[in-house]
């Protein structure tokens, strides 16, 4: 049975004992918080799971997610559990690249900051956001968008009846209310103001590409990465560079990413990060596999 490491993007909900789990494995977590503080000039050492200074701020929250993921993957690999494949959920890509040795920890921090800043500059003046729709299919949402001429897009398919949408905030809200009216079980606006995986970020490509080529020594990944965008398996520096830029503005499909892994023999997914959002999503994807969030990994050793 093959193993895949999967990496979350933002942590919407913590298990509560993530730090203790990492401490019990003598992980690099606190060391990474210090490194992130030194690189960014922003103090991450005061992080705690209930400190909204970190959990409610989009960039800090993304950074913390990256640090949790890198710390956990380090622990797992040190203990002898290596992935056959990896996949990053949206901005979880950076931690996958770190785990595969394609970038180092500091490069990951700088990429996250730069991607965030470039995205913000491209959408300057646009109040944008992302939302979640539960209970409608992709075609039902597409039809809503088309019929009502809504300038929002589907950003990600989590499963047949679970999608993320993105775009200018007013259009996302419009789409969410239309979705609820036709029978979506649940809609919610996410605590994310950057319209990831949206055409609004098309113009990030050149600047981010330039930053990557000037500031990052991309390496081949030690472990193959399944692209969340088009599910191709990538390893080389060139493919990774392309994936990094595409990941900001292209639609992803997490369900198909999962299916690709399953089709290649993966039966064990390790959620390399805090929370268990990817385990929850995985519940709706058919197949004979298990997703282990951080608090269940002890059972693997």
């Amino acid at each position, binding site marked *: 049975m093959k193993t895949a490491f999967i990496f979350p993007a933002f942590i919407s909900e913590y298990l509560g004992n993530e730090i203790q789990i990492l401490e019990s494995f003598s992980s690099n977590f606190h060391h990474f918080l210090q490194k992130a503080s030194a690189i960014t000039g922003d103090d991450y050492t005061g992080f705690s799971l209930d400190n909204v200074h970190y959990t409610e701020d989009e960039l800090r929250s993304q950074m913390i997610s990256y640090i949790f993921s890198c710390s956990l993957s380090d622990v797992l690999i040190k203990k002898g559990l290596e992935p056959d494949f990896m996949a990053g959920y949206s901005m979880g890509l950076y931690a996958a690249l770190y785990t595969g040795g394609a970038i180092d920890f500091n490069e990951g921090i700088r990429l996250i900051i730069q991607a965030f800043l470039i995205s913000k500059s491209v959408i300057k003046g646009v109040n944008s956001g992302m939302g979640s729709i539960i209970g*409608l299919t992709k075609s039902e949402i597409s039809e809503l968008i088309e019929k009502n001429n809504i300038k929002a897009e589907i950003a990600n398919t989590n499963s047949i009846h679970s999608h993320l949408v993105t775009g200018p905030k007013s259009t996302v809200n419009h789409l969410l209310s239309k979705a609820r009216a036709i029978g979506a079980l649940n809609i919610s606006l996410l605590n994310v103001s950057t319209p990831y995986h949206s055409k609004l970020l098309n113009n990030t490509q050149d600047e981010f590409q330039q930053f990557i080529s000037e500031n990052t020594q991309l390496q081949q990944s030690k472990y193959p990465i399944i692209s969340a965008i088009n599910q191709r398996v990538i390893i080389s520096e060139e493919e990774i560079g392309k994936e990094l830029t595409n990941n900001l503005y292209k639609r992803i499909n997490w369900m198909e990413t999962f299916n690709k892994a399953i089709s290649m023999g993966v039966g064990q997914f390790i959620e390399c990060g805090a929370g268990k959002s990817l385990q929850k999503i995985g519940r709706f994807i058919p197949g004979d596999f298990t997703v282990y969030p951080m608090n269940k990994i002890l059972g693997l050793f």
Partner: protein
Amino acid sequence: MARVNDKIKEEVREIVLDFFAEECEIDVSEITDDSNIITDLDGDSLMFLALIEIFTKKYGQEIDLKTIGKYSIKHPVETIGELIDMQLRIIEHGNKIIELD
């Protein structure tokens, strides 16, 4: 659609409680009919979707999720008791749930 008898009521309750106990990593005894799914149990809408799928498979129903979604606009589910009642109504009425009141 199925006639809801005491056995089904008991099955549904047991499945719902076991599901939340496992998902929320708490003991079944900590869950009551009045437990708020979001504020008390840290639950979410994906759990509601998962339960609908569990019950439609178990009782061989073909449910249009949008019908349940529309019904839930008028009959929002906040507690475990309300969730169990909703599931029983879905089992009993299927897609005709929307025709209730």
